[in-house]
């Protein structure tokens, strides 16, 4: 079997963030693969929810590009309104959400709104969708992002989805009663946050990347522990499962 791609490393790292019995705000693309992988390995009792108003505990009947595709509805256990799903979030019943990002900064703040200023942006992005809600209200969230310098600025141009803000007790001061980023998973590494100071640190480097490559391709510098482990590489079994759900490599190649 061919070795893992960076995207496959991300999928596996994402899956490992999911605990058994988690209620996961899944989303599309890589996190969907992470969820399916986790279900088939260590988290068989996890359930996935979607903001269109849907809960499932098994993969969609066929591959999907949006959460509203019919194969995602067939075989669901609960189809309902968005408000029911958002109520789960706001009442603390969602353990984990995944967020894609155009930019993420050293405190895990996520931008999906604009590059440049809000009033006259260089690039206007689609906006929040449900991302800000997940960032504010889930017990924890994980950011999935390509490890590129312009995507990892010291401070995002716009805080669409709040991470730890400016660090310290910023979240609590805003009135956010829980949550925050538990990991940033890039194509090169996993970054986590010190529970006390909210300071980011490099948690592991994916096989095939070096510390220099990690640091050269980002604008801010996470704390570097004395020894940084290698992200445990995907196992053969894990790769088989990923490739079963993404046979043409639409998302992972």
């Amino acid at each position: 079997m061919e070795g893992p791609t960076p995207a496959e490393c991300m999928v596996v790292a994402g899956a490992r963030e999911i605990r058994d019995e988690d209620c996961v705000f899944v989303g599309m693309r890589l996190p969907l693969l992470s969820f399916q992988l986790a279900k088939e390995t260590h988290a068989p009792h996890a359930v996935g929810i979607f903001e269109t108003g849907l809960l499932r505990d098994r993969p969609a009947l066929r591959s999907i590009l949006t959460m509203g595709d019919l194969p995602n509805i067939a075989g669901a256990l609960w189809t309902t309104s968005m408000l029911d799903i958002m109520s789960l979030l706001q009442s603390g019943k969602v353990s984990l959400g995944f967020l894609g990002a155009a930019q993420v900064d050293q405190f895990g703040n996520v931008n999906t709104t604009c590059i440049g200023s809000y009033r006259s942006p260089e690039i206007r992005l689609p906006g929040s969708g449900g991302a800000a809600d997940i960032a504010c209200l889930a017990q924890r969230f994980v950011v999935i992002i390509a490890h590129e310098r312009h995507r990892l600025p010291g401070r995002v141009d716009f805080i669409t989805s709040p991470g730890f803000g400016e660090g310290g007790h910023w979240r609590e001061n805003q009135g956010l009663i829980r949550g925050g980023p538990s990991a940033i998973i890039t194509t090169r590494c996993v970054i986590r946050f010190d529970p006390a100071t909210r300071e980011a640190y490099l948690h592991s480097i994916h096989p095939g990347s070096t510390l220099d490559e990690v640091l050269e391709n980002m604008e801010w510098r996470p704390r570097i522990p004395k020894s940084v482990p290698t992200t445990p590489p995907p196992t053969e079994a894990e790769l088989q499962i990923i490739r079963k759900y993404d046979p043409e490599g639409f998302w992972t190649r």
Partner: protein
Amino acid sequence: MKGKVLSMQEAISRFVADGDTVVMGAALEPMIPFAAGHEIIRQGKKDLTLVGPISDILFDQLIGAGCVRKVVGAWIGNVSEGSAYNFRRAVEEGVPAPLVLEEHSNFSLALALLAGQMGVPFLPTRTLLGSDLARIHPSFKRMECPYTGDKLLLVPALKPDVAILHLPRADAMGNGQIWGSTGLTKEAAMASKRVIIIVEEVVEREVISHDPSRTIIPGFLVDAVVEERWGAHPSPVPGHYDRDHHYYTRYHLETKDREGFLRWLEQWVYGVKDRKEYLKVLGKDYLKGFRIRTRYLSTPVDYGC
């Protein structure tokens, strides 16, 4: 048929006026009323305020066609492809016209419509605290909870002039039914002053009354029912057809510049008189590919006595 059943042309002409606030795409990615949106473009409606959580590319088309003054929404793009270029051009360059934005998250927009449905001026929430979306929004307010001291955000009610919904079925009196995820469909319909429903099929009253739990909006609140098969294409409709991903990809590739979009508009909107002609351009064989292949039928339940 009779009751409230109208042609698409009549329904849009009678119930959508220039300057109206129109909520569409309330179910998010499925059941987007594309046929209604295209008729709005053909009728040259102006200065609309569009409301929707995730509009996929319908809002982009209306923006590019010059119908829109303002968008109240949470995500404006092409769900499977990323950006939507008319939206970008409007915000980045003012082309074809500048766009006023009132940005929400999905949840805050849901609460605005729920407040409209419920008849209260606002609802409180814990979302968006700390987000720049709360900072720039023109009418969110902050409040300290009188019970807990918690910091809360207040989201004011939205009451659109018109809701346009695409649903699998309704009877001629406008009792509209849905199955599968509903997004904000009910809240949008109940919050609005007028309601137009587009359906794949106008059914007999007995189909409705034999399963009233599927009713998402009762007929007494509905102004017009339009039977328009494939009226949500390229978005999916439960019980009828799946999403046409390829159409979104082509739209993405063909509308990167303004001229490309104008060509697209000519081909798919101005160049066809109505949905029937649009479907002819697609072709029967092409459409067949999106029909349901694997059935997944519900078991009948008994509402008897």
